[in-house]
């Protein structure tokens, strides 16, 4: 095994890989080339990018946390319970991953908007989600939660049940097994789900602008700030985009190969 030649990637794979990397990297490099670096600080502060950055961090962290709190139990049910129609249920909760986010936004308006089928009850008790930071969190969570569900369900399925069985045979309560056996064993997948959800939440645009609207300082996260800056100031749009690229890159690099190469 150790003697296997390491540098024998077929030419066609090298060629296609280079094309693939170029395809993804070129637009990012173009942003770097076109950015008005000399006005970096003025452009970013005048376009309200810092406010949007702070809001993006708050919204994405809240959405990632909410995705984990609600998504991990869903993964548990999908992996372990014997309820009928499980594959349909899985398809439904994974759907936000493939739907255009604007569809999620329209659905959320119909459900939780002021006139929505559930939202009118919230409105009656004085809770309004639309046009608030909570609306942005809800919209973003809708889009990020499938990533937690997928990661954690895969983790639960690959977990060796004998550890948990051994613990209960020795008299541990179900809560004890969960806290001291299952969750620690699941930690890599929980972390992966959380980080992927966080990264996805940072980039969320369609559901947020549709459900929560676009107001600087309240619901205007970085992607929305890019969109609005594009209307009036292309230079600021590029710099704000780079800010978002940098943030997302930090999040993705922080999980390194640990998440993907198990």
């Amino acid at each position: 095994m150790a003697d296997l030649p390491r540098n024998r990637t077929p030419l066609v794979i090298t060629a296609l890989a280079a094309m693939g990397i170029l395809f993804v990297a070129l637009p990012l490099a173009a942003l770097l080339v076109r950015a008005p670096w000399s006005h970096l600080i003025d452009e970013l502060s005048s376009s309200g990018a810092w406010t949007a950055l702070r809001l993006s961090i708050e919204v994405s962290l809240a959405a990632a946390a909410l995705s984990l709190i609600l998504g991990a139990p869903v993964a548990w049910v999908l992996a372990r319970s014997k309820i009928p129609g499980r594959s349909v249920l899985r398809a439904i909760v994974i759907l936000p991953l493939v739907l255009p986010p604007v569809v999620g936004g329209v659905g959320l308006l119909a459900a939780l908007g002021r006139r929505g089928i559930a939202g009118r009850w919230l409105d009656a008790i004085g809770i309004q989600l639309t046009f608030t930071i909570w609306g942005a969190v809800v919209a973003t969570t809708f889009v990020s939660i499938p990533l937690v569900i997928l990661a954690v369900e895969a983790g639960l399925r690959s977990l060796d049940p004998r550890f948990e069985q051994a613990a209960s045979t020795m008299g541990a309560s179900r809560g004890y097994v969960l806290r001291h056996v299952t969750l620690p064993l699941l930690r890599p997948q929980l972390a992966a789900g959380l980080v992927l959800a966080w990264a996805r939440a940072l980039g969320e645009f369609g559901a947020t602008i549709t459900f929560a609207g676009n107001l600087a300082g309240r619901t205007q996260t970085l992607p929305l700030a890019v969109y609005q800056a594009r209307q009036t100031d292309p230079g600021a749009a590029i710099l704000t985009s780079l800010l978002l690229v940098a943030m997302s890159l930090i999040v993705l690099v922080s999980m390194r190969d640990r998440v993907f190469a198990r």
Partner: protein
Amino acid sequence: MGGTRSIALLLGISLALLACGSGDGASGGGATELTVFAAASLSDAMTRIGSDFEAAHPGTNVTFNFGASNDLASAIESEGTADVFASASDTYMDDVSDRVGVERRVDFAQNQLVVITPPDNPAGITSLDDLAAPGVQVVLAAEGVPVGDYARQSLENAGIEDAVLSNVVSDEEDDSSVVAKIIAGEADAAIVYTSDVTSGVAPQVGSVAIPDDVNVVATYPIAVMSTTLHADLARAFVEYVSGSEGEATLADLGFLPAPAS
């Protein structure tokens, strides 16, 4: 080994592919394709005028790209794919005129602003001034979008700009999104063009007129792009829109006639 060589080879191949991709000037299929970039507020009117024009000019296919005029102007400047541009404001036509070049520029319609509310008018809006009352949730188009700038101008004329702007809950990307928020009942009031209250929209919203002395009149210019490959057809389209047929359709949809020039 050979990694860098294969990358170089690959770059060569991709460039070659790019080169043949951009070679085809004329589109197939026989019909002449006319691409019109038009302000979102014109979508109903232009769609109708476009099919009338196609009927009057067999073998012509008019394709529209509707959006906020500012977006369209920057797309024309960077991509240059439009044959005709119809803008909701002189500003963006001026930009395109400076950077790309236009001909046959003419003002073809005017529009005014109106306040719209959900049909049940939850905030009890009866005048423009009511938008300044505390707690009213107002939606406007974002700054830089013509209807958004006109709305702010009108509020400034009425001397209630600050109070209303503090009631704004969302800066929307264009007038269609503003109307959508009101139809959904998510906000209490918005300012849009009278032409946005089309026959389809009218039953789903309430409207409150804005007094003439503070209202803003938007003028729509249209022009042929100097980069067009179908100059004759593009000129014919501009004439059609600014002529009697276009005017009739526009009047039908709530636009005012352009000032006599």
